[in-house]
């Protein structure tokens, strides 16, 4: 529908919308995050939900303690190789539609612990991440920015066709393989369906 016509109709007291818009508005306005934190980024995440920054203004009304009731997983902090299988398992237990924000340097790449023996080099090796936020830790404003970016991403998704959300696409995988803790490292070290080695142009 023509955007200008819609505004004109709105001035006359007529609300015109599409099912897609209504559906996406509903989806983006009540994203409930899961209540879990991994490291120091979690402190910033908690600050974001408190009165000063008040993430509830954006629809993240409550943090749910159960993955069954949560829509958004905020990977807030260092994902150790000991914790990574549990994170993937929690993600598998979330119901669609579900989103992931990787918050902070550790969650997106391993951060200062990247070359360590016990830290995963980014959670995007095992689960699909919607928004990455750099920072160590990112400020609450950055998390709000990431949240708004996610909302814009949801808003822009068509309900049919190639770019439709995962839960409306029967071909998409719903369960992600949980890595096994092996004798020297996690096995496999990444999920090739989710993450391939990025091309570095030097």
């Amino acid at each position: 529908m023509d955007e200008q016509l819609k505004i004109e109709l709105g001035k006359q007291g007529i609300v015109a919308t599409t099912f897609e818009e209504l559906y996406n508005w509903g989806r983006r306005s009540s994203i409930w995050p899961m209540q879990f934190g991994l490291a120091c980024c979690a402190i910033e995440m908690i600050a974001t939900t408190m009165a000063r920054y008040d993430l509830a203004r954006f629809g993240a009304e409550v943090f749910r303690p159960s993955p069954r009731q949560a829509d958004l997983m905020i990977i807030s902090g260092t994902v150790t190789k000991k914790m990574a299988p549990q994170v993937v398992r929690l993600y598998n237990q979330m119901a669609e539609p579900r989103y992931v924000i990787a918050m902070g340097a550790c969650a997106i790449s391993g951060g200062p612990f990247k070359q360590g023996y016990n830290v995963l080099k980014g959670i995007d090796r095992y689960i699909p991440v919607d928004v990455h936020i750099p920072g160590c830790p990112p400020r609450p404003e950055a998390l709000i920015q990431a949240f708004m970016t996610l909302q814009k991403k949801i808003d822009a998704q068509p309900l049919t066709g190639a770019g439709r959300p995962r839960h409306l696409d029967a071909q998409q995988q719903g369960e992600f393989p949980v890595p096994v803790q092996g004798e020297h490292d996690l096995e496999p070290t990444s999920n090739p369906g989710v993450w391939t080695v990025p091309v570095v142009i030097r």
Partner: protein
Amino acid sequence: MKTVEEIKAAIEAAVPRAGVEIVSNPSVSAQHSLRLAPGCALEVAKFLRDDAELALDFLSNVTGVDWPDKEIAEKVKVTRAVTKTVDGVEQTVEETVEETSKRVVPGCLEAVYHLYSVKLKHGPVVLRMRTVNRTDQVELPSLTPIWRSAEFQEREVFDLYGIVFAGHHDLRRLLMWPEFKDHPMRRDYLEPDDFEFEPTAHDVVLARAEAHRAAHPGASSDQEGAKA
């Protein structure tokens, strides 16, 4: 507080055949430590805790040290008879030759304990214990029965260095998962080769990333010469 020499004398008076050695620290802090023989360590620890003058009732820290096998090259001057041809005549001449002899000092694992007294407000007293080697004889007595706070820290030392604390009631890995086989804080630990994506590598990481690329030529993440 007593000096290490006085503590050593007190231990030897209380526990005969204790086998205490002083490990001096030449730095300005002069924090000398006591190396205990593992056989009598439990008795010595009990004495240190219960003695009225020492009363070391607080174990603040347990850590480990890995001493790898060390190869020492020594130059020795050796005089020996050498057959030589001098002026066309074969002669036996005494000659002094410098020879390098190499010997391997076997490594060991060391556990370090830092003790304080809350009651008498003094400390630290540093205790050390060494294992026989770093492969199969890696047992040390656990001091958890004396100081309960050693429990988790000895588990951590077991996890990261591989020292087995005999007498520990719950010796499991603390930080790594149970299936893990290595001891990451040992000097010869080789971390897994997951250097496939290093966008800003330098120094050691660059060397390892290049080694990874050489080993996996097909899976290269770099486009050499693709610079615009």
